[in-house]
């Protein structure tokens, strides 16, 4: 059900772990729907993401999208990181099953949440960054029997 890239990132997650005294930390999702992602960002004085780590509670797709998202933002500026959308994460993973698309949204949101935390800590405003929703749970369609 998963692409080879998803399986690769699930089996060998990149940047898994935590950063002590990170510049920004963001946690999104909820255990009720089965996915929680936490992103740690280390941002230097020039606004470049020097390091990024993640921790995820969730299915294979949740782990893989977190892992891929960290790769896509590492070494990038804040502005560039903001351009990493869920679509970009999905494309980089060669797609996700429809029921797992929300995992990529969560990954995008986790980065935004970490950036928001960084901005708050430093009393700055990041252009184009809105306060992230801490809880993403898609409305499921009612099945008909």
């Amino acid at each position: 059900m998963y692409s080879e890239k998803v399986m690769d990132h699930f089996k060998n997650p990149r940047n898994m772990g935590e950063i002590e005294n990170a510049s920004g930390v963001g946690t999104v999702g909820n255990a009720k729907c089965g996915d929680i992602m936490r992103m740690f960002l280390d941002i230097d004085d020039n606004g470049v993401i020097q390091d990024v780590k993640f921790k995820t509670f969730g299915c294979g797709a949740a782990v893989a999208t977190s892992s891929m998202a960290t790769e896509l933002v590492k070494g990038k500026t804040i502005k560039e990181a903001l351009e990493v959308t869920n679509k970009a994460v999905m494309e980089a993973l060669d797609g996700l099953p429809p029921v797992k698309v929300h995992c990529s949204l969560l990954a995008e949101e986790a980065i935004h949440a970490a950036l928001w935390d960084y901005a708050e800590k430093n009393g700055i405003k990041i252009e184009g960054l809105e306060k992230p929703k801490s809880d993403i749970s898609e409305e499921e369609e009612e099945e008909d029997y």
Partner: protein
Amino acid sequence: MKKMIYLDNAATTRTAPEVVEAMLPYFTEYYGNASSIYEFGAKSKEAITKARETIAGALGANAEEIYFTAGGSEADNWAIKAAAEAYRSKGNHIITSRIEHHAVLHTCQYLEKQGFEVTYLDVDEQGVVKLDQLKAAIRPTTILITIMFANNEIGTIEPVAKIGKIAREHGILFHTDAVQAFGQVPIDVDAMNIDMLSASGHKLNGPKGIGFLYIRKGVKIRSFIHGGAQERKRRAGTENVTGIVGLGKAVELAVSHMEERTAGERELRDYLIGRILKEVPFSRLNGPRELRLPNNANFCFQFIEGESLLIMLDMEGICGSSGSACTSGSLDPSHVLLAIGLPHEIAHGSLRLTLGEDITREDIDVTVEAVKRIVAKLREMSPLYEDFMKKNAKR
């Protein structure tokens, strides 16, 4: 590739070689239609009769009370929909439980849309249907009680004989989905007051695509599939002779040495449960320790999610399953685990391992070691575990 350790026998089983052998002649040699006049067709008919007698014998039923279907789901659909239709003049109320298989639950939900009223009984923390609630739920309009013999996820064996007695005392039909229980635990339809019972071939080392519905003589439910006189005019369609022969053989094998086979499985199951609970911190067993299917073990591991665990077990050649969401294409955790009162985040971290006859102690040891390693790895990755450990460190 490592040796595969197949621990998902509640999903399906390997067709026994003896079963395949019994089936083979009915593909190429005795391929006649059992309804034909000539002697050649009678060969098929004889084989069907023999299988029907074997199955009836295993249940304490009469051969003419066994109706072959394409499987357990069809048998469940037939029993419930046809009973609802046949007894509608008497009432429109059906009682079932929250932990049924979806073949029962979705059928009941379908009937609700047709104007029937359904009571979904709660279960206790072990998954046992609450009998006082059952008694209280009975109305003058109740026409059917349908409660599973044993749960497919957590293995709980329901108090079927007591439920049958209650149903009989109130003159209400009693159907039980015995797809997981048949061949694993002794069943006597008379002693247990069962009026209808569904079972499936591929759960007991028989072929897929064949099952049956037992319908007690006198229960007036009509045909589900129209178009022929097969199965005493109650289930049209040329008989699946090979499937029926295979099912008959599988039942013969399953009941002939049920006691020793299940005793062996029970011993290994208890060994597995004991080791996991002792060696994996923050783990729990779902379902009762004793009154559960002999081959079923179902665990929850806190702070991790079931699908990740399954994929990692698969990478080590171990086949298990999870009640979790992801496997069924829905994001909700198992309805059974929620019904026994587990919170969502714990219900998401479930693992069901169901043993088969050829599983060895070594297989269990390999599995336990893999589970320990993988659960630890996933916890290292889990923000929930991180939070929990930090909170505990502060104390």
